[in-house]
């Protein structure tokens, strides 16, 4: 597969005049805005990678009068911290993206669901929002934005659990279909987009989809904000074009002794050194919401896996049995193999369980536990057993 060299860009955090983009979008028809986003190839930055233009189009086609735009700022995936940085530095671009999305789909109300852990940002965000709303009203927009806080539940980043939480209930995901664009918050057509996705839509409208598409690859257009942590001399936030190989990434960020990179957080994949060169970071390879954790040879991959399984066991909402019991059994299972209470071949049974969870779980949480589990067990089997 073709890969790109590391290429740093500065679009997300670049300061722009939001009035200019908002005025431009105000002069466009709903279809023109949607076509521009479709044309850009933008895919969701929250992890699932659904084409943003398509999401907006589906919601726009709904006949309901009341529709919602939700900015997902729950950012609970282990290893991700870029949405906070975006909100801290360029919140006005997030507000602008929501306002433009509102115009495109015909929604008058936007809600930012901010994780409780980021509550300290709220006074600053509210103040900036007041100024923003004055400006957008002057241009002619009739779109309000409000905040709702989470209260420490990873699952509430899943879009339908997020609706439940705003509605004042336990954050338990709903069955799909119906999809949010048809029946979302309060049963109304709803667009849920990640913080970074919304900012990308502003970038696309400012520079045009043609220019935007020149970044990244055919399947992964544009750039992405990466949250880099773990065994690296330079942890932090970096905006890079999509489509580079993991080897390029490790050359830039590794400490010279990188044995594995967990791409996409606890819900993502663990890539061992031998696969760095052949792994593309992007939707055609290993996708990521931005979480990149580097592990060097001093780390026990058993501890890494154990930590992830504890995370999922605690954060599973408990509603569906495959996920609730599956997480617990995977955790107990690796513990029992480590303690020699079970034979190492028991790991094969656990892999089967992870496969079952992928098929039988109700939402993305249970469906993705197997990603980390299988990629760590398959690539670092000795470390799990001995």
């Amino acid at each position, binding site marked *: 597969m073709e890969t790109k060299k590391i290429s740093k860009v500065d679009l997300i955090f670049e300061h722009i005049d939001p009035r200019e983009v908002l005025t431009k979008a105000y002069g466009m028809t709903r279809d023109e805005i949607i076509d521009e986003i479709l044309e850009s190839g933008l895919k969701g930055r929250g992890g699932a990678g659904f084409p943003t233009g398509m999401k907006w189009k589906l919601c726009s086609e709904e006949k309901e009068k009341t529709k919602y735009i939700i900015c997902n700022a729950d950012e609970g995936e282990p290893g991700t911290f870029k949405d906070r940085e975006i909100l801290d530095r360029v919140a006005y671009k997030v507000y602008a993206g929501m306002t433009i999305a509102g115009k495109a789909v015909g929604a008058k109300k936007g809600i930012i669901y901010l994780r409780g852990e980021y509550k300290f940002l709220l006074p600053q965000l509210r103040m900036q929002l007041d100024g923003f709303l004055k400006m957008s009203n002057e241009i002619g927009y009739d779109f309000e934005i409000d905040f709702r*806080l989470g209260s420490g539940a990873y699952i509430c980043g899943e879009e339908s659990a997020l609706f439940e939480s705003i509605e004042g209930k336990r954050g338990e995901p709903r069955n799909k279909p119906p999809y949010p664009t048809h029946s979302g918050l309060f049963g109304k057509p709803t667009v849920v987009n990640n913080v970074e996705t919304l900012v990308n839509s502003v970038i696309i409208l400012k520079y045009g989809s043609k220019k935007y598409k020149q970044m990244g690859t055919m399947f992964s257009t544009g750039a992405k904000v990466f949250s880099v942590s773990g065994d690296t001399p330079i942890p932090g936030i970096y905006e890079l074009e999509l489509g580079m190989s993991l080897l390029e990434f490790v050359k830039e960020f590794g400490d010279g002794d990188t044995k594995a990179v967990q791409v996409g957080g606890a819900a993502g994949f663990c890539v061992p050194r031998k696969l760095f060169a052949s792994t593309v970071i992007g939707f055609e390879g290993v996708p990521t919401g931005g979480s990149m954790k580097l592990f060097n040879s001093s780390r026990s991959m058993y501890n890494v896996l154990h930590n992830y399984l504890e995370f999922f066991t605690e954060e599973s909402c408990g509603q569906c049995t495959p996920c609730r019991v599956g997480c617990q059994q995977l955790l107990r299972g690796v513990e029992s193999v480590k303690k020699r209470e079970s034979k190492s071949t028991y790991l094969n049974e656990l892999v089967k369980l992870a496969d079952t969870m992928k098929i039988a779980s109700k939402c993305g949480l249970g469906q993705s536990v197997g990603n980390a589990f299988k990629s760590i067990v398959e690539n670092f089997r000795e470390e799990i057993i001995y």
Partner: protein
Amino acid sequence: MYQTDNLVKDLVEKHGRQRDSLMPILQGIVEKHNYLTDEAMVEVAQELDISAAEVYGTASFYSFLDTEPRGKYVIRVCKTITCAMKGKEEVIEALEDILKIKVGGTTSNGLFTLLETNCMGWCHKAPAMLINDIPYTELTREKIIKIIKDYMHK
């Protein structure tokens, strides 16, 4: 145990009586008192005209909506992988030494509760903790001692 006085009524006034006001109301109580008493939850249920079980069911789902007594300052130490790799255990040890409590405990003067939490998004500045809403990062034993002393004298 605390008295909600007019707090619940004020919060209901501010957020409304619809079901979707429930989270902001519960969050408002926790902001003031750090946890939810049975009495407070029953009062919220009456105000919103829903069953107390619905209120408790919702509250108990969220790790930040505590239904057990908590100190004035709730310390939550991140235990997810990067913080675990970068010294979370030493952070817990330092806090346990200074506060003379174990994880899950509250100091006898009711000032501090020590808890662990999952990834709170400071992996690049690990190890990290929250005290109520305020994050503290790149923690060392010295830093922790200073932070806690400051809170003791607040």
